[in-house]
C-alpha cells in the first residue's frame, strides 16, 4: 500500500472519530451566537476563530463532519446497492432488459450533468437534507450500475459459472454466490471515489442554499456565509477552515480510491 493511501486512511479515520464524538470534541454550542465575539481570529479559546455572528468555527467544522459523512455514507450505500442490483440484472440476463438499461437509462442519465439534475430536483422539491440525499442517490446509482454491468458481463463467461450452471444452480444463486463476489472488487474503488463526490455535492448544494438549511453547520453553508465581502475582509479564517475541511476530506477519499485501484490492478502497480 502506498504512502498516500495511508495518509488518506488516517484522515478518514480521524474524520469518523470526530463525527462520532462531535458533542464531546466541540468546545462550544454550534448555534450559540455572540455578537460581541464576532470575527475573532484563531486563539486558545476559539481554535479556528469565530464567524460573523460570533459562533465558534472549530465546533461548527466538527459538527459539519457529521453532516458530510452522514450524507456521504447514505448516498453511497443506497446508490451502490441499487446500482449493483440493476447492473447485475442487466449484465446477467442481457436481452431487452440490458438494451433498456444500458442503451436508454444510462444514456439519459449521461445526458444531464449530475449536479444540474440534483439542483433541478431540489429546486422543485424544496431544500432539505432528506431531499438532497434523495437527489444525490438518483444521480448516483448509474455509475455503479454501469460498472457492475460491465463486470458481470465479463465474469458470467468464466468456466466456474458454466460449471455451476451445469450443476443445475438457479440464476439467483449463480448471480449472488458465483458472479457478484468476483465482480465486486472495482466497486470498492468506486465507493471511495463516490464518497468524495457525495461530500463535494452536499457542500455544493448547501452552498447554493439547496441543501441543509443555514443554521446547520454544513461546510457548504459555512463557506456561503463566509464569502460576503465584509466577512472576507474581517475574518478570512471563516472561509479557510471549512474550505480546508472539504478539501482534506475529498483528498483523503481520492487517495484511498486511487490506492485501492492500484492495489487491485497489478498492471498499474508495475508502472
Amino acid at each position: 500500500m502506498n504512502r498516500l493511501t495511508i495518509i488518506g486512511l488516517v484522515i478518514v479515520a480521524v474524520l469518523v472519530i470526530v463525527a462520532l464524538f462531535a458533542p464531546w470534541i466541540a468546545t462550544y454550542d454550534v448555534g450559540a451566537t455572540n455578537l460581541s465575539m464576532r470575527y475573532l481570529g484563531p486563539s486558545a479559546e476559539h481554535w479556528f476563530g469565530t464567524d460573523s455572528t460570533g459562533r465558534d468555527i472549530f465546533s461548527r467544522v466538527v459538527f459539519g463532519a457529521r453532516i458530510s459523512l452522514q450524507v456521504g455514507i447514505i448516498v453511497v450505500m443506497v446508490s451502490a446497492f441499487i446500482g449493483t442490483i440493476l447492473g447485475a440484472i442487466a449484465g446477467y440476463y442481457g436481452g431487452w432488459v440490458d438494451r433498456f438499461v444500458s442503451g436508454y437509462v444510462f444514456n439519459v442519465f449521461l445526458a444531464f450533468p449530475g449536479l444540474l439534475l440534483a439542483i433541478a430536483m431540489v429546486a422543485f422539491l424544496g431544500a432539505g437534507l432528506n431531499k438532497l440525499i434523495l437527489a444525490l442517490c438518483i444521480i448516483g446509482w448509474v455509475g455503479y450500475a454501469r460498472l457492475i454491468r460491465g463486470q458481470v458481463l465479463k465474469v458470467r463467461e468464466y468456466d466456474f459459472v458454466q460449471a455451476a450452471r451445469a450443476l443445475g444452480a438457479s440464476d439467483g444463486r449463480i448471480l449472488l454466490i458465483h458472479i457478484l463476489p468476483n465482480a465486486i472488487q472495482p466497486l470498492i474503488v468506486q465507493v471511495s471515489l463516490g464518497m468524495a463526490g457525495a461530500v463535494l455535492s452536499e457542500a455544493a448544494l448547501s452552498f447554493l442554499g439547496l441543501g441543509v438549511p443555514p443554521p446547520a453547520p454544513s461546510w457548504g453553508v459555512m463557506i456561503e456565509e463566509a464569502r460576503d465581502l465584509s466577512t472576507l475582509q474581517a475574518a478570512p479564517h471563516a472561509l479557510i477552515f471549512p474550505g480546508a475541511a472539504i478539501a482534506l476530506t475529498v483528498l483523503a477519499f481520492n487517495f484511498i480510491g486511487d490506492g485501492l485501484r492500484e492495489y487491485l490492478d497489478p498492471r498499474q502497480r508495475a508502472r
Partner: protein
Amino acid sequence: MRKLRYRIFGILRRLLILLLVVWTVVSLVTLLIELVPGDPAVAVLGEQATPEQFAQFREKHGLDRPPFFFSFPRDSNNERHFVWHGADNRYTDYWSSLLSGDMGLSFRNDRPVSSLILERYPATIQLAIFAMAIAIMIAIPLGVIAGTNRGTIVDNVASLVALLGISLPSFVIGPMLVYIFAVKLLWLAPSGRFHWSDIILPAFTLGAALSAILTRMVRSSVIEELGEDYVRTARAKGLSERTVIYKHVLKNGLIPVVTILGLQLGVLLAGAIITEKIFGWPGLGLLLVEDGIGKRDYRVVQGCVLVISMTYILANLLTDMVYRWLDPRIRVG
C-alpha cells in the same frame, strides 16, 4: 456494401437514442414542476393573495389545466380516482409551445423565458470558453514538464498542484481568489461583468478543476508516448529534445486530451452555475439560481435546466463526432 449498411445502421441507432434522450430530458423538465409541494401559485404569489389573483395566475400560466394525460385527483371522500384527460393537458402544451421556441412566461415579471435565457446565454458561453482556455494554458506546459521530468521534484510539485485543483471545489477557490485579488490586493473587482478584467477570476475558478484533470492526463500521455519507438527514431536522427517533445510527442499525446475537453465542456456549464453565483456573473447559472430558484420562478428554472442540458447533449455529440474522425479505429466499431 455490407460495411456501408453497417455504418448507416450504426448512425441511425445513435440518432434514435439521441432522440429518445432528448425526449426524456424535455419530459422530465416539463414534469418537474409537478414535484413542487402544494400549489405553485401559492408558492409564487404567497398565502395572502386573493382567490381572483390565484385564478388569474393559474390561467395565464396554464396551471389550471390538467398536468398530464391522466391524473389521480382526490374526490370529496378524499379518495383517489383515475381520470383520463386526453391530449388537452400541460404536458402537450409545453411541448407544442417549445417546438415554436416558446418556453412560457416568467412567473415573476411576465417576460418570455426564452428571451431571458437568450440575454444570459452568451455570458455563460464566454465564461466556459475562457475557463477552458485558461485550463489548457496551465495544463499543457505543466503536464509536459511533469511528464518529461518524471519522478523528480518538479513532477511531484506539479502533481501536488494538480491534486489541489481537483480537491478544492470552486466555491472554496472562488472566494479565496476574491479575498486575495479583490479584498487584499484590490487588483480586480469581486463581482460583476463590467470591465474586461472581470472575467479573469471567474474563468480561473471555473477552469481550475479542469486544468488539474488535464495536467494529469497530459502527464500520463507524455510518459506513454515517450516510450514509443518513433521517439527513439526522432532522437536518433539528431532532433533536439524540444522538437521531439513539442513536434512529435505532444501531437500524438493530445488526442485523448481533445476528447476530455469536449466532454468537460458540459461539466463546465454545470460548474458555471456555482461560479456565476460566486462572482455575480450574469449568465444562465445566475439566472437559474437567483431569478429561478431564489424567487421560485419555476418557469425560469425549467427553461434554464432545459437549455443547459441541451447544450451539454450537443457538446457531447460533437465530441463524439470529432473523436471518431480523429481516430478511425472507433469509426468501424
